[in-house]
């Protein structure tokens, strides 16, 4: 995990066993709920597991967050933040 200048918490979850990517994403969404709601931080998750690109955005949206999914080279980046 690294804290960037943009108050973005980055988690590299590439190469992990299913479903640890989703479990880590849920843990971090719950752990940073207040900062996320206050727009103090946003989460950026790096995943290569295609299943995670379906389940993490689905879960984040169900929890009321805004989600974006982008392909970057050979992996995907999921950004989770407070809704506008």
């Amino acid at each position, binding site marked *: 995990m690294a804290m960037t200048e943009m108050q973005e918490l980055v988690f590299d979850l590439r190469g992990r*066993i299913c*479903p640890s990517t*989703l479990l*880590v994403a849920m843990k971090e969404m719950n752990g940073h709920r207040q900062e996320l709601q206050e727009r103090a931080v946003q989460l950026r998750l790096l995943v290569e597991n*295609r299943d995670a690109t379906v389940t993490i955005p*689905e879960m984040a949206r169900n929890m009321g967050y805004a989600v974006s*999914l982008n392909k970057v080279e050979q992996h995907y980046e999921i950004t989770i933040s407070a809704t506008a």
Partner: protein
Amino acid sequence: MTTPLLIILSGQLLLGLTAGFVMHRADFCMAGIFRDLFLFRRRTMLYALILLVLALMPLYELTRLLGLTNYPFALFGPPSYANLLGGLLFGVGMVLAGGCVVGSLYRLGGGSSLAATAVLGLILGSLLYVELDAWWGGIAKTLSFATAAITLPQLLGVPPWLPVLVSLALLTPLVAHWWRQGLLQVAFGPEGHIQPWHAALLLAGVAAVSTVLAGIPLGVTTSYAKLAGYLMLPFAPEHTASLGFFQRQGFNMIHPLFGIRLTGGGGPRLDSIALIQFPLMAGLVAGGALSALRLGELRVYFNAPLRQYLSALCGGVVMGLASRLAPACNIWHLTGGLPVLALQSILFVAGLVPGAWLGARLLTRLILKI
């Protein structure tokens, strides 16, 4: 090699390639379907699996009525408590491994080092079973049910089409409801993603064509035992040759379409089982690889924590062992036996569901510690 054998070999390769490609694109993971049901109450893929089984019911009934397949399929037998126990263990194993016997193959093609570890575990688990076969054979005899019926229609004394018709009448409105509610598709997806319902129908087509072509449903686990035999052979040739499991020729049938006799077993021989299953396995790996290559996503990662590699290995070993105890695997029972209401498959699935629940608890508490 005769023309029918060449058709079976090339057809199975092509069907494996198609299935591997579709499964990779949709990430149609059978282990994930049951695991995520318990961990996240996520049902989308379970609904897609039910659609797959439901689509196969009339397809298999049609092939039976046209005389294209045997009824019941070869290699299915009367039910036993071993099917339940095997299903339970298999459920635990597939969740710990992060994928089932087929899921590990298409993911291996996609570059997953964890899937490669699970495949190694599957071969080792099969090897373990081979050594326990004589002991288990004695126990298995005491676990059989007092019936010679192989399918539910045979047990009930009704024609095979009747329970199929009843199942379709009961489940089709339910699937139609899920369809209307948008529960058979997902809102997000990676590049080249195939929606779950679309993947389910494509895989049902692959399973039905493969069953007509090979004479038996989709399955790969006997070939994991064959690979274990090939692994043992150079180190212990006499011991390998002496093992009862490797000597048995459990597969013996006249192919309904080609009229040729197919025979084989779990031993390290290039018999009919090898002819049917090895190309399928190669196709599944190649299909996953082709999909990943075309998407530019083929890259091998080795950065998972050691504990996760151990989980994949142990899960593979448990699955390999369970697939021989059961006998057979989730693909065989879910896409082969369940649509024709084979009693062995009903029991296997009855064990698989609590097994996946137990596997999910073990995975989160011991491996992921979340």
